[in-house]
């Protein structure tokens, strides 16, 4: 059980766990946590690919690691935008729900948007 296969299994488990959390948990903030879990699981998959690609004197393949670094920063930006939307929605309506009881509820009657 080399560390990379172990990390691969952990990555797969994290993706599964994150999927469950993202689908089931109704509160958007918890969904962001789940999204970050899946993200770290995916980055672990990149990590083991990098580790198994060790060659030419490097203990790792640098390209997937660079992708992971870019991915982490993008994931953070996504969480920041989502949090901003959640907080603004919270200020506006006092409660934060992705699906209100009837998601097909029509936006307010007064014509939509400019």
């Amino acid at each position, binding site marked *: 059980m080399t560390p990379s296969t172990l990390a691969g299994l952990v990555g797969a488990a994290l993706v599964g766990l994150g999927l469950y959390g*993202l*689908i089931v948990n109704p509160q958007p903030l918890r969904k962001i946590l789940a999204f970050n879990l899946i993200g770290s699981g995916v980055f672990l998959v990149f990590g083991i690919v990098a580790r198994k690609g060790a060659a030419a004197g490097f203990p790792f393949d640098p390209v997937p690691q660079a992708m992971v670094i870019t991915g982490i920063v993008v994931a953070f930006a996504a969480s920041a935008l989502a949090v901003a939307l959640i907080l603004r929605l919270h200020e506006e309506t006092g409660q934060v729900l992705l699906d209100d009881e009837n*998601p*097909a509820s029509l936006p307010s009657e007064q014509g939509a948007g400019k």
Partner: protein
Amino acid sequence: MTGSFTSPLAAALGPFLLVAALALPLAFVAAWFFAGQRRRARDLQWLAPVPALGAALLALAGGPFSFEAPALRLSLSLDRPGALLLAVAALLWIVVGAATFTYWKKWPGQRFAVCWLLTLTGSIGAFVAADLLSFYLFYALVSIPAYGLIVDDDAPETKRAGGVYMAFTILGEALLLLALALLAAGEPHGSLRIEDVVAELPTSPWRDGALALIIASFGMKIGLAPLNGWMPLAYRAAPISAAAVLSGAGVKAGVIGLIRFLPLGFALPVWGAALAVLGFFAAFYGVAIGVTQQNPKTVLAYSSISQMGVLAAALGMALAAGDASAPALVAFAAANHVLVKGALFLTVGAFAAMDWRREKWALPLAAALGLSLAGLPFTGGALAKLALKAPMGYGIAAILSYASATATALLMLHFVTRLAKTAHWGETARIPHAIPRYWPFFALGAIFLPWLLFPAVGHLSEALSLDTLWDGFWPVLIGAALALGLARWGEKLPPIPAGDTVVVAERAFKSSFALSGFFEKADARLRFFPAGGLSLVTIALILAALAAKAR
């Protein structure tokens, strides 16, 4: 089909006239959108079909010619059947257009005028189109803007008629598109010209599908029995001039479609018989329902259904026998119907707008015009019956053709009685006063003009021989006798609503709204975030599994 030799004059002038025939109406449409040109466009609008009439007459005299525009993927050609129909259709458009647009008052508005021009372009184009895509373009142009002609006021009845008309039209378009796709698929070299495609049809693997769809889509346009629901509603709701041109020239797009797309040079007994049966059924069905109708315009609509049925039957018999000369003959019969049906609708308009009792000759002229459809000797109708005798052949079809003549005579006399009883009703506002004044000339023209065109398809001497005269006369006599019986026992016939089968179709359509309610509930459930998440993961796994399937 006398020789297809084209005189040098026709070869030179023809293509130019073809293009002008289509360009002029579109120019008028453009003129309507410039404020300055609006008045001039309205007054001269009736001149739009003149180049088309010129092209048709030139083709009749000088032989077929064509025009190619590969850049626009447009190719036009005018052969004898097309020329026959184009000539009379253009004449009808000119006459009714002149009556409607010259002494113009408040009505018709810009919307009616623009729809009129678009439908006119489509009607001309349908006769001259030579490749699949241009034919489909003009076929759509003749059907869809006609909605603007039919729905000209806000009465709920008109809206219903317009809705039904659009539903049938769009369905017909869809069926035709699939038929054209099947035809195009059968053509190995990928050419889209109608002749090449129809030549390949008998041997193409999609022959049956294509033929079924062709008959269904054009059948819907000419109102063959099960698909005729829209015609009575539309013609009753439409103003007189619109009803005249639509029933006269508009419907003939379906006839030219059948003439062009049925492989008449190749004997297909099964399909021919099927079309003949459908045609005769429509012929008698039209009369059976027509006699129960009260409104003269609805009676005329059912007479159109019946006459189109006869034409379809003739084409069916020709398809069964593989008789290549049928197109010109059927085109002539259709041409006669254009003139007579247009004149009949103008008659209804004239009777509504004037006190016909004062003119002694009014009623007999209307009767003569009506009976011309039944083949009354010395009228255009007699020539039409003669022209159809050859494709009908002998045996059962000939007998049925005479029976249909009798039935038509009965229906026309019923029409005349209904016309007499219900005069002075309805909207005189939307009947241009040119119609009652010049009505007699239209009627006489419609009766005697076919005599000028007959030499293009047959010999006048044969038409005047004694036995053809007698052939034409006895069905009218029997029809008259039946009409007397109908006048006495007419009331006992069950009152069938206009548009018969369409009432059932409408109820089915309404019930389909419940189904769409189901769609809405499903959409509401699917748009919960968890449901979206689940379907995303499911689709990912299904796609992965299917990608692995190495079939």
